[in-house]
């Protein structure tokens, strides 16, 4: 079992992101469609990981605001993969949460809406329950 001080490294392993390669150009934050809803912006997420402040990342609104559109990954000139850091932080949070998932299969029928694409539901389940 990894200790608390190992959290940043665990996050690196889970995300596969290369936080050290970031040159702070801001192109990720420039590309992000969900920027305004985030308290820690995509490029800052990379800096937080560099500093090792995983708790702040897990408690951010960003982990819920990121749409997983991967625009930041697509455009980052250094192949840092900021969205994967965000996703990893969310996963760590969900795992810590244990058996109380944010969405359970039973909630789904209620959420169904003919306009919602199936794919979105599948990705929501994946995002909130893993």
């Amino acid at each position, binding site marked *: 079992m990894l200790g608390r001080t190992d959290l940043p490294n665990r996050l690196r392993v889970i995300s596969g992101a290369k936080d050290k390669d970031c040159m702070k*150009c*801001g192109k990720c*934050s*420039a590309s992000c469609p969900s*920027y305004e809803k985030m308290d820690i912006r995509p*490029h800052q997420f990379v800096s937080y990981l560099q500093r090792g402040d995983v708790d702040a990342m897990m408690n951010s609104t960003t982990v819920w605001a990121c749409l997983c559109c991967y*625009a930041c990954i697509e455009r980052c*000139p250094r192949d840092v993969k900021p969205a994967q850091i965000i996703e990893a932080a969310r996963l760590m949070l969900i795992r810590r949460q244990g058996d109380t998932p944010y969405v359970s299969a039973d909630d789904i029928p209620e959420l169904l809406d003919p306009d919602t694409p199936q794919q979105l539901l599948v990705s929501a389940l994946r995002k909130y329950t893993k």
Partner: protein
Amino acid sequence: MKRVGVFVCHCGTNIAAAVDVGEVVDKARLERGVVFSAEYPYMCSEAGQTMIANAVKEHNLTGVVVSACSPRMHEVTFRKAAAKIGLNPYMLEMANIREQCSWIHKDKDDATKKAVSLTSAAVAKVHLNTPLFAGESPVTKRALVIGGGIAGISVALDVADAGYDVDIVESTPGIGGRMAQLDKTFPTLDCSACILTPKMVDAATHDNITLHTYSEVESVEGFVGDFTVTIRKKARSVDMKKCTGCGACYDKCPAKKAPSEFEEGLSNRKAIYIPFAQAVPNVPVIDREQCIKFKTGKCGLCETVCAPGAIDFEQQDELVTQKYGAVIVATGFRPIELGKFGEYAPESKDVLTSLEFERITNAAGPTKGALVRLSDGRKPKSITFIQCVGSRDTTPRGKAYCSKICCMYTAKHAMLVKDKYPDIDVNVYYIDVRSPGKNFDEFYRRAAEEYGVNYIKGQVGKVVDMGDHLVLQAADMLDNRQITARTDMIVLATAIEPLKSTKPIASMLTASIDTNGFMTEAHPKLKPVESPTAGVFLAGACHGPKDIPETVAQAGAAAAKVLGLLSKSKLTTNPCVAAADELACNGCSACESVCPYGAIGYEDRQINDHGVRGNQRLAAVNTALCQGCGACAVTCPSGAMDLLGFSNRQILAEVDALCR
């Protein structure tokens, strides 16, 4: 038995920190034939060299081993020192205990063991060394410059002014390169054409300079001092001797749909054309793919209107072969293709590369210098510059390096806009502003401070063309906010790359290119204008991103090296060449097929085999062409081919010593 002396260098702490030098000295003394061994902090220093000289005299040494850095660094130094005291220089060997030992090992015991082994291998080799004598080769007092941009023109003028003949081969119809396309130049904002065209004319009229425009290098043979180069002069379809440059042909030519290379495709040119009004030489070229006569057999208008009768539809490519002592590569650069950078909407007419912007601001350009949107001809109210497009990008679509010139030319563009049209809102998105260089930072700061150019630290993530304006989404890293803004024109500071044609040039010259396709220098610090191939020099942006001042400085340095070479009447050749043992060679031709320098031929030799006279086909090495690479020696199935100074016996003795 030779009397060998071993000298072990500390190289300051470079070697001594990782290797127990005293131990290497002691162990060396136990080697066969070693009568003297010593250590010194810097063997390459004058005191170190004197130490070798004194020991040779005092101990009657007939072989010397220096355990120090790579022979590429100091073999010449030590061999010269040996020659000075009358020892044949090839009786000295180096053991590389720095690059191949102390620099790459952390454990001192292991590194010391390895240094001892490497030294004993060198001792084993030196026992088999024989005196070798360098030959001589001629120097052709003529230089070839490949590429007629500002780099090539500068080298040519410098070499020609010193009294030597120079030929410039330029692939396009005229000289001048990228600089001819520029409007004003940083850091002084003087007009590019005003400083370049006089140089172009100087090159064209210089008694010692011959221009081969619309020409390409077809093949290169030979070596330093004695290159034989074939140049293909592509058919211009215009007789250069008859043409007066009146321009009647291109005025009348009805085929006018070819995108102009000089105008970056922003306007069209005729099928018969000169690249721009001040082109040197002022002789047009027919683009046979565009010409109606070549396509359909009809037209011939240019021929009709050409009073001196210079049009020649039958003209063929011409091959010219010439000898040269030195070759200078100055093939320049181009902006990268932006097809993979869809987020910037590069297909939009109002999104320009910086080079296109140079043409738009140029009074002689496609808009006659009017700053207008190419989509609708309106004057922009806002212009946005984006830096580092495709540069500093480690993904497969970009270039990992900084293109170096774009921070400065962006500041220039921004100032030029503000100077003419103070009412236009100018924003620059940057990651870092890189402006080292004389008066460079002052120049960039003037854009911000005097001209009110708005510099925003951050990148643009997306550009959308809305028809009558553009919208961009960007990040401001210092204010930590996202910006969505309207703008009328976007200029992309596009990464630059070497031309694709640089690679074949490099391989013809057996010179090398780096992973980015730029020409490689022989040493990044001490030989920045020489290629690793003797007699081949580098100038300008073909070697890495460079601005004009740096290009001209490098061209001057390359010219000095060329002059140093051409001023010699003879060159000494490397005696470490291949030689075939005529008793073992059976003339199979295996060696000939692997020699990259074409140095191996065959001759019939009369032999007397047990009283039977006969002819035997034998490999013969042209020692002037042989570079001592050793490919033949390892290929020869009968073990007949050997390399002087690196014989099979010598190498096996080293291996034996290492395996002990």
